[in-house]
């Protein structure tokens, strides 16, 4: 155990941020060595919310284990479930009906917008602006209403099942999604007015936490954290799953590598998600929402891997099957863990107050890091 607080020989001081701290958005414990205001070292301590989800999944069947993954990255719960469902379908070689694929992709993108909305509000709140939090939640609330109506829950939906989705979409679904798109487009200029253009905000973001493209790759960053440094890593483009290869959207890239670049990537990603939803919402084909599957699912002996793009980056699901009804081993490659590992690298040499901006733009979800 490290020295928790006190003076060390060189005049450095060790302080603790967390595990209970409003800026860490969860139980993350950072042991920070500072010299005056300058950060010398950041040491994240994990394990405060470890629930051994991977081990838990080994005792659950292939239908049951999907719900647990909602509790990893709860802000993109739907996309986590999607990854697991895809991996099981890969093992069973189930053909998912086109209608189910459309519904899944629309839901994924809605989840991505909801996640970025919450990030935007919480990020501005970390930097001292309280009002944007409520503006972000206004739009997020509309998405949650859509989710509640169709999936039956607001956050941990458990809407994906191997072979499709659990229930057909609600009759009001298309109308509500279109209303949300209208609402989002009319309100989005407020985001730029209130936060993006604000001089205080820009000064706190620009040239703070600069991450080079080489470091982003070598630390294994993914998602908006890496795309802010100009690393092309969108799984939807590189390894398309479902119907993403038929869709028109751009991979958002920024080259700054600082906190502001990562901020802009997320804002522009919301626009791309809206673009994807607009392409799909009027063209949902008729047909089954779920493929016919056996009551008891048994994956053949072997190893299966599926990766998807969550709101935070690349999520990989790795299943080892021995041919039984439960997996032999499950491993999740979560985006939050790799993105956290870069925090020490980008925080060294900067001021203590900027640490909040760096943590905010890395968009850490602690249950995703610990699992």
């Amino acid at each position, binding site marked *: 155990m490290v020295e928790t607080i006190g003076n060390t020989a060189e005049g450095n001081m060790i302080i603790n941020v967390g595990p209970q701290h409003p800026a860490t958005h969860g139980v993350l414990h950072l042991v920070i060595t500072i010299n005056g205001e300058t950060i010398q070292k950041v040491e994240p301590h994990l394990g405060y919310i470890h629930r051994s989800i991977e081990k838990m999944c080994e005792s*659950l069947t292939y239908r049951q284990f999907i719900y647990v993954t909602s509790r990893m990255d709860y802000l993109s719960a739907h996309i986590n479930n999607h990854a697991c469902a895809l991996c099981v379908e890969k093992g069973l070689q189930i053909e998912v009906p086109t209608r189910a694929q459309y519904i899944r992709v629309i839901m994924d993108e809605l989840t991505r917008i909801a996640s970025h909305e919450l990030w935007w509000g919480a990020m501005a709140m970390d930097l001292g602006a309280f009002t944007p939090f409520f503006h972000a939640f206004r739009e997020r609330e509309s998405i949650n209403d859509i989710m*509640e109506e169709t999936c*039956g829950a607001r956050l*941990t939906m*458990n809407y994906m099942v191997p072979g499709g989705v659990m*229930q057909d979409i609600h009759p009001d679904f298309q109308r509500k999604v279109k209303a949300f798109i209208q609402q989002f487009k009319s309100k989005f200029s407020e985001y730029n*007015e209130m936060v993006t*253009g604000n*001089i205080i905000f820009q000064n706190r973001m620009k040239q703070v936490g600069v991450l080079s493209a080489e470091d982003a790759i070598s630390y294994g960053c993914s998602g908006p954290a890496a795309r802010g440094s100009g690393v092309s890593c969108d799984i939807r483009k590189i390894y398309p799953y479902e119907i993403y290869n038929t869709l028109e959207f751009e991979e958002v890239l920024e080259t700054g590598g600082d906190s502001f670049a990562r901020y802009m990537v997320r804002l522009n990603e919301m626009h791309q998600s809206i673009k994807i939803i607009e392409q799909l919402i009027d063209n949902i084909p008729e047909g089954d929402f779920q493929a016919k599957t056996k009551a008891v699912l048994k994956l053949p002996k072997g190893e299966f891997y599926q990766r998807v793009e969550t709101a935070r980056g690349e999520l990989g699901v790795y299943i080892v099957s021995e041919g039984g009804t439960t997996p032999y081993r499950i491993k999740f490659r979560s985006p939050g863990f790799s993105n956290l590992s870069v925090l020490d690298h980008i925080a060294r040499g900067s001021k203590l107050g900027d640490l909040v901006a760096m943590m905010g733009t890395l968009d850490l979800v602690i249950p995703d890091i610990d699992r």
Partner: protein
Amino acid sequence: MFLKEYIKEVYSAVKSLLVGMRRTGYYFTHHKEIITQQYPDNRATLHLPERFKGEVVMPHDNNNEHRCTGCTACELACPNGTIKVVTKFDVTPEGKKKKAVDKLVYHLELCTMCNLCVEACPSDAIKMAQTFEHSVYDRNMLTKILNNPGSKIMEGVE
């Protein structure tokens, strides 16, 4: 030249702050745009969609009859051991023994509302209710028996 740049910078900085303040001021003066709901004062008008997953219930008809056959499909589908089906053997008028549900024990404290039991049920005996205020003072009250006392299976449900 330097002074000109400096003044320009100060001007744009103040302008960016005022633009943000204008938006805040707009909402300060336009009360109709506020969407805050005053829970729990709005309980009477609160509308939850029919698919909302609040808790598992077993609907009974007017004759105190349900549709549960005691097949334990829900118990097997549940990831958390939330449901325990206790079965008994009824004797039919022909003198045959028939399996039936004695008690369907439901632990609300373990339930994650994943809907897998409702999906698994072959006879639509259970469904999700739209209740959501589940807090109680005694945890024993969270363990519920879903079938009513003295209830029996509906005619024609196999």
